[in-house]
């Protein structure tokens, strides 16, 4: 990494977080490549393990799918914007769509026995389980996600 190459001098200050934005049409086929691109960027910053392969990949996939399907109604002319801020400690993402928004608190618990055989309704649940911070804006058409590089893994033994 470039900031580790400044050997010989005083300890370098922590590098500024990197910021960039992606904008994509509401086409579900783009999701995998966007997740893969962001995953690779995180690997460069030494993210890895289940927090990357499970928490990040699935969480990001859910956020993009929600924006395209429920936010933009699968209208390919409507865009999804992903603003990314990342450094070696955490990645913060703002995923916004052009929809009217929704109430994220009106989602039934998909793990309740009565809901377990439902084919849908797990997206928001997974997003909240897998990301460290999930915060919707007031009208529900943008969500801010934070995942720390280090942190508790949702291990099978943890009972999560």
């Amino acid at each position, binding site marked *: 990494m470039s900031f580790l190459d400044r050997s010989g001098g005083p300890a370098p200050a922590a590098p500024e977080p990197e910021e960039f934005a992606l904008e994509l049409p509401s086409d*579900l*086929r783009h*999701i*995998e490549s966007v997740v893969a691109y962001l995953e690779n960027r995180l690997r460069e910053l030494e993210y890895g393990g*289940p927090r990357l*392969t*499970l928490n990040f*990949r*699935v969480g990001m*996939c*859910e956020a993009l*799918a929600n924006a395209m*399907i429920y936010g933009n109604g699968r209208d390919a002319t409507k865009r999804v914007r992903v603003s990314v801020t990342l450094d070696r400690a955490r990645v913060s993402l703002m995923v916004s769509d052009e929809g009217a928004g929704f109430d994220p608190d009106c989602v039934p618990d*998909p*793990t309740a026995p009565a809901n*377990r*055989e*439902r*084919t*849908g*309704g*797990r*997206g928001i*649940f*997974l997003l909240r*389980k*897998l990301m460290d911070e999930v915060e919707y804006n007031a009208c529900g058409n943008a969500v801010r996600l934070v995942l720390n590089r280090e942190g508790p893994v*949702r*291990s*099978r033994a943890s009972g*999560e």
Partner: protein
Amino acid sequence: MSFQVSKSNGVVAVDVDGQLIVGNRQELKQKVLDELEGGERKFMIDFANTGYIDSSGLGVLVSLSKKIREQNGELRLANLNEDLRTLFELTKLDTLFNIADSRDQALASF
């Protein structure tokens, strides 16, 4: 990503290579339903080469499980890695599916 279907000893095996997500879940669903409509009743989905599954992918598995059961068929899942096991446990879908540690174990369980 792709779904390879093979048959042996009366069991339809589907290998999920890559992701099972919102963008490709219908392809898996259709392949299994085609076999179900063709009279097959024993199904095994092998995740040995799977990356990640999202909520839509889980939804398709739930849907297929129901449709197979309605036709008095059986579905086994095999070779879930640690991430996938965690995902199934988070969603409590581990209680809904018959999950085998290996392909051989899944095939032997019919």
